[in-house]
């Protein structure tokens, strides 16, 4: 397992004419979303390649595990493909990890873009020491035909520009500054990889977490796992994104209140209510990059120079 100080491989920036594969590693893609996203890519001067099984359906998945593996293996290995855009999340990326871990991911390393269930693929790339982009997928890119902050920010990152985000302060933030490797994503998906070779919830990192449709007590239980294993105490920083589709319960009025209570005993910077996650906000995060998180009473900045 790579230590939190090992520098990660940064994929080459996209050039005019670069090929971008569009894949569906988990759920069933919405064809109009993929077509609009492909058009947005063309408008940027890139060449979208919709992979053979990206628009299929098998039960609740876009295809059998073999079909999804075929598309993703080709996209990851082919040196002509310079980036991989996942069409959506859902559930099922985990089926592919064992096989994908056996291929050479580093020689033709490229940006993989997505979030939610795609956090499983970010975990795979993290285990291989490769940066990846927690960011918008086809349906988010398609909003307003690409004329949205998520897509503009993604294009900037893909062209090799630095990542620089600023966010409003939140009453439960804890001030401080840290520079460390940025990691994380969907907490339920990443919890499902603890104690495996793809465990991305590591001490010494700046951890970003988001989730959807998980009750407060279940998210609390996932964080207790990190507490009991010593990870929660030894983070360099914590960023909580959006937690959607849940109800206040008898113990807590909000997810943020629960997370704050659980992490109050520590001293690293804590930025809460960051608008990244499910819903319409999918500003890209460069996972695996050395990032500076700065939390002040005036607000939050997240910079990878």
């Amino acid at each position, binding site marked *: 397992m790579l230590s939190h100080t090992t520098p990660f491989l940064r994929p080459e920036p996209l050039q005019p004419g670069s090929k971008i594969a569009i894949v569906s590693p988990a759920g069933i893609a919405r064809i109009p979303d993929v077509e609009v996203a492909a058009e947005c890519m063309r408008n940027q001067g890139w060449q979208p390649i919709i992979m053979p099984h990206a628009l299929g359906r098998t039960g609740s998945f876009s295809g059998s595990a073999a079909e999804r593996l075929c598309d993703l293996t080709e996209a990851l290995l082919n040196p002509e493909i310079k980036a991989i855009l996942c069409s959506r999340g859902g559930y099922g990326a985990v089926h592919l990890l064992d096989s994908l871990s056996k291929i050479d991911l580093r020689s033709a390393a490229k940006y993989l873009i997505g979030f939610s269930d795609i956090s499983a693929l970010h975990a795979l790339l993290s285990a291989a020491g490769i940066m990846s982009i927690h960011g918008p997928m086809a349906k988010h890119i398609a909003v307003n035909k690409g004329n949205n902050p998520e897509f503009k920010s993604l294009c900037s990152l893909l062209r090799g520009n630095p990542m620089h985000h600023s966010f409003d302060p939140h009453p439960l933030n804890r001030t401080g500054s840290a520079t460390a490797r940025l990691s994380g994503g969907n907490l339920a998906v990443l919890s499902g990889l603890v104690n495996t070779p793809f465990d991305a919830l590591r001490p010494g990192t700046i951890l970003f977490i988001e989730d959807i449709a998980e009750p407060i007590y279940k998210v609390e239980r996932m964080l207790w796992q990190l507490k009991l294993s010593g990870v929660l105490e030894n983070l360099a920083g914590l960023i909580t994104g959006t937690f959607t589709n849940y109800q206040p319960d*008898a113990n807590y009025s909000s997810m943020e209140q629960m997370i704050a209570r659980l992490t109050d005993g520590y001293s690293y910077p804590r930025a809460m209510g960051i608008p990244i996650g499910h819903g319409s906000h999918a500003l890209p995060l460069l996972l695996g990059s050395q990032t500076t998180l700065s939390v002040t009473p005036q607000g939050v900045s997240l910079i990878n120079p």
Partner: protein
Amino acid sequence: MMLLSALLSAALLTSAPTGDADTIHCTHDFTAIALSAAPVPSLPAPLSDGDTLAIVAPAGECRGRNLSHAAAALNHQGWHAIEGPHIYECQGSLAGSVSDRLYDLRNAFLNPSVKAILCARGGYGAIHLLESLDSLPLSATNKWLVGFSDISALHAFQNSRSTASIHGPMAINFHHPDSLLSPSCKALIALLKGKQMHYSLPVDPLNRRGYAVAPLRGGNLSVISELASTPYDAMLPGSILLIEDVGEPAYKIQRMLYRLKLSGVLSQLKGLIVGEFTDAPADIDYPSIPDMIADLVKDYSFPVAYNVPIGHAAVNLPVVLGANASLRVDPDTGVEILTPLP
């Protein structure tokens, strides 16, 4: 009657009997026989006449729950049931603050006259207590602890310090008088008396044949999955793993078992007991959760028993975790589980 004798003979060959056997339940759906066996020194001591049991609530709140049936049923056995002082406290959905719940559990462990601890109910919250229980000496925690569901976190704690515990019905599951006591509760009483339980279950088409003797571990899959990578990880290679859950869709169960697969533990199990997976929404990818599990374990060869009546259903057969058990799966005669074994 012939079947019973045959079962008894088979059981007697594998246990160290001192004589009698009590039939707790015997119908086509399952058979539960309590066997007298020589005491196993590494297990908590069986209860004797006059012994005290403490009823505690480490997780969900118990206001408005009738726990008196449990006390009455236990007293009827010649024991003395006491309730922890905080069991009716309430903090949100929890049976009191962490310190309330810890107080009752620590007291029950530290009180030398308390010989067993019966949890009132599950819910959520037992995990809050684990680290604070670490400081208790082994001699204090070497007594029977009983429960299931969220209490699986406490089983993981006990088993992590080499102490066996009973996955079985809790105080809210008891009825009184004795005539209303369920087979599961009767089997629990037998285990607390130091008996060995022999369960015989019918054939299930998904079962995979085989025989294993190994430490029995596990419980509620969601709860024990969250203990992976902690000092209380119960999902260990070389064990017979018991799993059950409630209200979880097939894909979430699959995700938890994929974790077990990717960590290398699934391939190293000696056996798998698939208990009840209740209240699962319908799934378009698999006809049932057992079907999904069978697909996931198809490359391995250890015995697997499906639809075993353990978990959040009308029947919840108690078993001893953290001690050896035997699992025999036969395509013609069905499943036999012996618990505990030396």
